């Protein structure tokens, strides 16, 4: 959910709660006040009637508002308020009244006084007041809601821009991040932190890049010297034992050099030093690679079945795409048995390469790890490189062993 949407939603919920609360309590308070006022009015009326009877002896009667009756005075009625329903003869409908009844003694005579006031008036007043309160609050809120919404939009516009800038930031593109200056202190602080962080990231990235390149150089150079000299030794007339020893050392050094290059490659992929500018066709690559592998396949007498339903295209650096297919095919050939099979199935969104081979205890979780190998002659880095390429390019690679050893490559959903 967007930040502003969230704020607006919270604002609306909060408002609804406040409105409900304020209206209910406001209504109750007003109700209490107005009822008390009404009761006071009735009491003061009682006093006036008492005075009038005392002075003139006249008994006022105004149905249904004032009713006074002379009584024997033995019933002992306590002053009380209650609600009564009385039929209005004029309009022929029932009306609710607040009734006050009391028995008072004036000049040794007892009178029962019943004073009434229409409850309807009181309720109406309360309702009108509560409604006014509600309307005022609601309009104040609506105005402030739209004003803040508008203001938020302008205030957050720079933030939106900067966020977009940060999103599109790429280390390997070697571009600088350009953030819009903000008058808002918090945003400016955020900008400063982001700029500092990206600068740090960039310098770390360059250092790492430089390190891998230097490491490569520093290791390859002495290896070159050793290898060139050993090769020259081979040119002499050597005894079989000496020759084999020298040749073994050459193989070992070659392995070391290959290992070094693979590790550097892994760190380069991890560093995202390979830019992908366009989509590559895996169909094209696999067809070319199979051609390159043809002698190897022939040598091992492998039967290859290729089924391409649709070209699988992915956005990947061309060199990495070649490497990916190369390593998967190499794996299918290297760990195959003589006279075995390789089957390749490509759909528009996946590539499956299956091969016959000896059973091993490797699983989907372990087979892609570095230096894990089912064959002592391999480095155990080929599949690690495959997984690294997938991880850094929104792809998935999975392995399962179900009669055949299968690797399934697909784009991440």
């Amino acid at each position, binding site marked *: 959910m967007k930040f502003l949407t969230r704020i607006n939603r919270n604002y609306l919920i909060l408002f609804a709660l406040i409105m409900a609360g304020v209206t209910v309590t406001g209504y109750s308070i007003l109700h209490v006040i107005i009822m008390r006022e009404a009761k006071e009015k009735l009491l003061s009326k009682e006093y006036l009637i008492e005075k009038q009877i005392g002075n003139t002896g006249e008994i006022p009667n105004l149905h249904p508002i004032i009713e006074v009756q002379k009584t024997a005075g033995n019933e002992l009625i306590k002053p009380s308020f209650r609600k009564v329903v009385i039929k209005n003869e004029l309009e022929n409908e029932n009306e609710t009244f607040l009734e006050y009844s009391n028995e008072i003694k004036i000049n040794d005579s007892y009178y029962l006084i019943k004073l009434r006031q229409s409850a309807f008036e009181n309720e109406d007043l309360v309702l009108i007041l509560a409604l006014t309160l509600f309307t005022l609050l609601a309009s104040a809120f609506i105005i402030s809601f739209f004003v803040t919404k508008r203001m938020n939009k302008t205030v957050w516009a720079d933030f939106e821009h900067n966020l977009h800038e940060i999103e599109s930031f790429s280390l390997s593109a070697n571009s600088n991040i350009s953030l819009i200056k903000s008058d808002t202190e918090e945003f400016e602080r955020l900008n400063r932190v982001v700029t500092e962080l990206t600068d740090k990231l960039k310098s770390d990235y360059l250092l790492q890049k430089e390190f891998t*390149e230097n490491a*490569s*150089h520093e290791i*390859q*150079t002495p*290896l*070159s*010297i050793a*290898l*060139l*000299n050993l*090769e*020259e030794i*081979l*040119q002499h007339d050597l005894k*079989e034992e000496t*020759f*084999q020893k020298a*040749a*073994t050392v*050459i*193989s070992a*050094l*070659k392995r070391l*050099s*290959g290992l070094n*290059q693979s590790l*550097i490659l892994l760190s380069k992929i991890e560093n995202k030093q*390979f830019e992908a500018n366009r989509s590559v066709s895996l169909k094209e690559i696999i067809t070319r690679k199979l051609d*390159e*592998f043809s*002698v*190897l396949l*022939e*040598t*091992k007498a492998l039967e290859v079945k290729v089924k391409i339903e649709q070209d699988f295209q992915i956005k990947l650096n061309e*060199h990495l795409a*070649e490497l990916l297919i*190369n*390593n998967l095919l*190499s*794996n299918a*050939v*290297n760990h195959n048995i003589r006279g075995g099979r390789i089957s390749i199935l490509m759909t528009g969104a996946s590539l499956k390469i299956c091969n016959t081979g000896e059973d091993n205890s490797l699983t989907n979780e372990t087979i892609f790890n570095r230096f894990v190998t089912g*064959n002592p*002659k*391999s*480095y155990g880095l*080929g599949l690690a490189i495959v997984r690294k390429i997938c991880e850094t390019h929104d792809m998935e690679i999975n392995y399962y062993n179900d009669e055949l050893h299968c690797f399934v490559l697909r784009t991440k959903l």
Partner: protein
Amino acid sequence: MKILIIEDEIELLIAISNFLTKEKFICELAENFRKADEKLSIYEYDVVLLDITLPDGNGLSLLQSIKKQQRRAGVIIISAKNSLDDKIHGLDLGADDYITKPFHLSELNSRIKAVLRRKKFDGSDIIRFNEISLNTESKTVIVKDKELALTKKEYDLLQFFLINKNRVMTKEAIAEHLWEDNIDLADSFDFIYTHLNNIRRKIKQAGGADYIKTIYGMGYKFSQ
């Protein structure tokens, strides 16, 4: 043929120059940018081997001045960085080839010969060895007036042997020449036997002799 070798590692410089001298090249050496620049402004070379990481300057800027001063010269970059960017950049700047350390001398030899051929310094497209005659232009091999039906890889391999005749080569060197670093060579070099046996058989069928010698099961040599 005159070659200038620019390389800051003295050991490497000596190993390369010893080998190339044996291959009948005239070698001049420069172990830093200053010396290389000086030599390039005085003498003319057919091929320049250029290490692009020099202690006192960038080899790539040297490449630009070579291209300006010595249009004839073929340039092969030697780099310890197996970096695609560097390779593309170097070739864009006018280098003829790019070779990554560690390399085999036989491979270097084959690359130098290829540059010379491309520059037409060799004068001839034909490489001859007794009854075998290989045409680098049409990429065909003729043995006793019969043309061999070789695959592309078989032709490559035979040419590699002819260029490096009398030299013992390891299986690694041969495999690397054929596949560069495209194939993870974990398993074995079985496929080299397949290739070699095919070549041997085809030459034999045309009436030629078998010149490919196996050295103690670990290397090969093309010789009398």
